[in-house]
């Protein structure tokens, strides 16, 4: 969209009084994320982690060519449902964000926004060499080289592209991480928010959203 919608503008109230609208401030919550401590009751937290690991709701957002590799997971051949993995169409209800392949700067902006809109605890699984070190786009003018500078990645699945089996293995790894209580990527993101944001803002030049997208 063009810039004019993010700049300040004047509208007039029904009585004709001018009202200044600052889109970024007025439309979006400006607060920054907070760290949410795990429950101090170990058994409760373990139980919760177990439930989290058995119910992984994946955000269906095809970011790169890996998107095509995710579809077979739903088919009878791989049937990821049996592990409690389901696809959700909205970030609000999803737990796992599968970044499925290369990320251009433009896509990264959407990925960050979507990630921030998910509710914690939330996990990021990055697919393919493109997200690890740029892959075949390592010297591209417009594709990021490594995702972990911008988002806290829990699991990398290597390959170009990784096959669905590899994805399943990745999910298995993610479950293990969650069950061990290490799936606190979103807390890390909150803790090192400034660093992440600086990295993000370094490459996303027209930053037209608040620092944290609630």
């Amino acid at each position, binding site marked *: 969209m*063009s810039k004019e919608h993010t700049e300040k503008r004047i509208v007039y109230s029904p009585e004709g009084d001018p009202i200044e609208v600052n889109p970024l401030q007025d439309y979006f919550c400006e607060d920054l994320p907070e760290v949410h401590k795990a429950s101090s009751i170990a058994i409760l937290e373990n139980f919760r982690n177990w439930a989290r690991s058995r119910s992984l709701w994946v955000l269906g957002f095809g970011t790169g060519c890996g998107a095509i590799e995710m579809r077979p997971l739903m088919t009878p051949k791989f049937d990821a449902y049996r592990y409690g993995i389901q696809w959700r169409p909205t970030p609000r209800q999803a737990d796992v964000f599968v970044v499925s392949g290369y990320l251009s*700067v*433009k896509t990264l*902006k959407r990925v960050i926004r979507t990630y921030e809109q998910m509710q914690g605890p939330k996990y990021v699984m990055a697919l393919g060499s493109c997200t*690890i*070190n*740029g892959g075949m786009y*390592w*010297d*591209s*003018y*417009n*594709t*990021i*080289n*490594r995702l972990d*500078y911008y988002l806290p990645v829990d699991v990398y699945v290597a390959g170009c592209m990784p096959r669905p089996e590899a994805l399943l293995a990745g999910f298995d790894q993610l479950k293990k991480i969650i069950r061990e209580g290490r799936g606190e990527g979103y807390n890390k993101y909150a803790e090192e928010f400034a660093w992440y944001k600086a*990295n993000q803002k*370094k*490459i*996303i*030049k*027209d*930053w037209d959203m608040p620092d944290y997208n609630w």
Partner: protein
Amino acid sequence: MKEIIDRLQELYPIGDFKQQNKSLALITVDKDKAVDFITRLKNEEGFLHLSIITAVDWLEKNKFQLSYLINNPTTKNSFVVRVMIDRENAEMFSIHHLWEQAATYQRELKEMFGIDFPGSPGVDKPFILEGWHEIPPYRRDFDTKNYSEETYFPREGRTKNVPAEYMKQKLYPDE
């Protein structure tokens, strides 16, 4: 194809006719006559369809080559009309009045090569890049590797291998 060119030869200075294959011919036209020529092809020779406008950066010759691929849907023939323009302050006449979709190609060329098409609708609006401030990235004098290394936090330890050799070494290390 040849006949058309022979017929038009007198009217337009057409150089470098090259019959690529049965239904595709490449020709070069002067910048000033290009729009006129394309208009004629469209209006009188039945080349009704503009397939693409693209550009090649001849850095050494200090030229941009614009290629208009136009197609005659009845005879299934296509021309690539090539126009050489100066690289400095690159500018070309817009043909959006002939084909509306040309405006989109021209917008892309403006963004990626910096070739201006005065009068083309929305030509100055960003097309796919958001917030690009460097020189246009498709120009050959833009060092994309350097840019990427400076910008995108390259991961250390990345090595490059020739796939055939690497796999051979990996799979059959003894040979």
